[in-house]
Structures are given as structure tokens and as C-alpha cells.
């Protein structure tokens, strides 16, 4: 049985009530931060170790000069090919049976490798505990067959969760209905994410949303090339040394002994 789940965020239905943001904090017992108004309803300004999901507010002007207000629920995308999982030295970050990326806080060593690895800028470090904390798609709720807190809280039905095929079909259907620039975001990169968006604008219009996210080449070189190369190179050297010893032989001093006065008699 395939239990892979997808959380679909239909931005065309989001009213930026921030119910999900509050529900996430409440369920996951995350404190609020003291922030300062920076001229936007967006609060806090960015994802934080204690803010796993954030409604981003953005004003754009369309071709006709009409101002549009865009809202986007930001947070972990639960990548199938997750850069954070690739780089984590202790397997603290891992894929669960639902395909989401959860974190085993006991295993996290606060190395911060996952922070620059993530193409979406999601993982944040809790300085007090020196541990990464991020959305885990409410893994414990999923295990109890319950929807994530944000899904449950959403009053407009903008956030829903279900199996992969159903949600993909649902997203595509919605995009057709919306027409224009609307598109499905999340199925075309990093082997598909377990969070899908229905965007009303092209991806590049949204702030902090990479149009073509991918696991950085540097991570592939590091983990797929250099990591095995370390063992291969050392192994080759050890084998080479052994071969050298049994074929060519060691470089032994011609005169073994040392005599009085450091001179050979």
C-alpha cells in the first residue's frame, strides 16, 4: 500500500487569515517572537525556528496597472529528493512512510549543514537547543490518521491533504478552472514535493519562491562524487602500497649498520 501523501495549497483560495500559522504554533507548542512592523502584514518577517509556516504578503501590479495582493503559505516542501536529507550527517532528517521529511531532534547535532542545502530556505536552528526545527507535516498527527493542524484549521479549504494521484489531479483541475497564469508548482522538480501549490501567477512572480528549485550541483559533487572518492582513493593507495611492497619491495638502506664515528670502516 502506498501511503505517500501530498498537502495541496491552493493559493487562489487563501485569504491570508493566518489561521494555519496560528494552528501550527499551537499544535507544535511554538512560542511567538517579538517583532517590529516593517510595513507589511507579514509577521514574522521570515520563517523562524519557532515559525514553521508563514503567510507571505506581496503586492504586485498586473499589466493593466491594477494592484494585486498575493498571499503564499511558506514552509517545508517535503521534497522527494530532499537536499537536507542528503547532507545531514546523522540522518536526523529523514523520510517517513508518508514521504514527508521529519526530524529526529535527538540525532541532530546542530551542524547547520541542512540550512544552506535547502533550496527553499526552510531549516532554522533553535539557538537555545542547538537543534534544527522545521515543519514535519505534523508527522504524529499523520500517524494517528489525522490531518495536519494547518489543514484542519483552514476555513476556506485552501489546504487539503490526500494521496498523491488524487491531489495531483485536483491541482491540475483547479489550474484549468482558474486559467490564465495559474499553474501547479511542486510536481516538476526535486522528484516532486509532498507539498503542492496551485499558484495564480507564474512562479517567478512570487518572492522567496525559486522558479526552478533543485538539489545544488555542489551537493551532488560533495555527496555523490567526493564522498565515495575518499574511500576509493584511500583504498587505491593502500592497495598500491601493498603491491609496491610485494613487487618492487621497500627502499632499504644499502648499508645496514652504523659504526663508530658515523663512518663505515
Amino acid at each position: 500500500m502506498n501511503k505517500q501523501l501530498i498537502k495541496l495549497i491552493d493559493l487562489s483560495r487563501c485569504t491570508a487569515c493566518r489561521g494555519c500559522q496560528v494552528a501550527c504554533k499551537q499544535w507544535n507548542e511554538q512560542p511567538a517572537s517579538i517583532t517590529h512592523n516593517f510595513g507589511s502584514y507579514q509577521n514574522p518577517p521570515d520563517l523562524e525556528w519557532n515559525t514553521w509556516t508563514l503567510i507571505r504578503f506581496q503586492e504586485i501590479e498586473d499589466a493593466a496597472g491594477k494592484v494585486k495582493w498575493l498571499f503564499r503559505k511558506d514552509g517545508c516542501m517535503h521534497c522527494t529528493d530532499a537536499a537536507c536529507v542528503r547532507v545531514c550527517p546523522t540522518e536526523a532528517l529523514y523520510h517517513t512512510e508518508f514521504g514527508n521529511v521529519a526530524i529526529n531532534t535527538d540525532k541532530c547535532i546542530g551542524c547547520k549543514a541542512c540550512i544552506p542545502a535547502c533550496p527553499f530556505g526552510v531549516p532554522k536552528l533553535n539557538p537555545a537547543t542547538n537543534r534544527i526545527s522545521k515543519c514535519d507535516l505534523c508527522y504524529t498527527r499523520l500517524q494517528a490518521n489525522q490531518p495536519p493542524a494547518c489543514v484542519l484549521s483552514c476555513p476556506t479549504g485552501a489546504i487539503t491533504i490526500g494521496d498523491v494521484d488524487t491531489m495531483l489531479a485536483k491541482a491540475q483541475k483547479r489550474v484549468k478552472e482558474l486559467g490564465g497564469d495559474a499553474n501547479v508548482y511542486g510536481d516538476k522538480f526535486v522528484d516532486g514535493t509532498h507539498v503542492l501549490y496551485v499558484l495564480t501567477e507564474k512562479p517567478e512572480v512570487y518572492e522567496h519562491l525559486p522558479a526552478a528549485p533543485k538539489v545544488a550541483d555542489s551537493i551532488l559533487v560533495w555527496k555523490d562524487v567526493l564522498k565515495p572518492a575518499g574511500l576509493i582513493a584511500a583504498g587505491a593507495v593502500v592497495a598500491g602500497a601493498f603491491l609496491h611492497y610485494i613487487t618492487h619491495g621497500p627502499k632499504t638502506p644499502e648499508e645496514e649498520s652504523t659504526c663508530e664515528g658515523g663512518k663505515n670502516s
Partner: protein
Amino acid sequence: MKKGMIKATGPFERVVHWCVALSCLFLCITGMAMMYHSLNVIGTLVGGMENLKVLHNYCGIFFAVSLFFTILMWWREAGLFSFPEDMQWIMAAGGYLWKVEKMPEVGKYNPGQKMFFLAVAIFGIVMVATGLIIWFPDGYTVDTLRLMYILHALGFVVIFAFFFVHLYLVTIGAPGSAPAMFTGWVTRGWLKTQHPKWLKEMEKDGTLIVYGEGKYRK
């Protein structure tokens, strides 16, 4: 100490060398414990992977200091090539791979050792620089940090491979070398085989210290 042994290294030289060698080895082991998930068990020896990470970081500082003194001490002798004899030595692969009739005479360090020194010095600096940035990443861009991780891994691959070459040569590959690291006294025969030019230089300059002679007379 046997009479007639020749002094090859001083106590400062040996201490610095052991410091850089052991810290480098410790860094390789703890680094590998983080690089290869199957080696995470090494962490249990020090009370968990978080401790291991912290030890790796502080050992890195110790390594940096040791490396500083290593470079200060050896850059003239091991960091500069002397032509043409070093080139000839390299063309003959140091006489290690095939029979070579007449090897160019090498001084205190042969070109192979010089290359090892340069690799450790250059990649050692790279490891220290990249390691510090990875340790304290605040203020660096994502692209910079990603580059640091690649360089840190690359430096490990190079140093780790070279380490085994070095270990082989100073143990069973060129017998008689190890005492240079322990007592500092080596045999004349070893010097004549490994570093003939150095031996001649010391004899010419009168800097050769032989056990049982001069102030080392019992």
C-alpha cells in the same frame, strides 16, 4: 643510543610533527564519522555525535596552530623545489616504481616529500579556512557555504589518500625512517640511501651530529 647514529630531527621538530600528524588523523577519523553514516557509531565513543562534532571543531583549532608551526619550520626545506635534480627525481618516480641506475641525490626532503608537504600545507589551510566558515556560517551567502562544503570534502579526499602514502613510506616502505620521528637519531646507511645530498651538506658544513662524538660523547 647506539654510537654512530646521526641526529636527523630536533625535539621541536618532532613535537610539532606529532601534533600535526595526530590532530590530522583525529580530524580524518571524526570527519569520516560525519561523512559516512555507517561510521556514526564512532560518535558513541565520545558520548554522541554532537560531542564528536565539537571535538572535531576544537581539534581543528589545534591542527591550525600545529600547521602554522609546521609551515614555519619546513617551508624552506620542504616547500621549495630545487632544479634540475628535483625534476629528474620526479621523472624517475623517485626510484620507487622501476629500477633506476643513477638517482639524482636528494637533500633533507625529496620531491615526493615536498609534494606531500605542499599538499598538507595548502589543503591544510583550505581545511582550516573552510572548516571555520562551516562552523560559524552566519553572514555568509548560501553559495559561499555550499562551496565551502565541497572544498572541505575535497581537502579530506586529498589529505586522506596522501596520508596512507606517507604512512606506508615511513614505516615498511622505507625502513629506518620511523626513528626520525621517535628518537630523532637515524643510521648513516638510511641517510645515505634516503637523503645523500643532505648528508654531504651536513658533512661539508660541519653540522653533522654523531652520537658518541663531540658533546654527545658519553
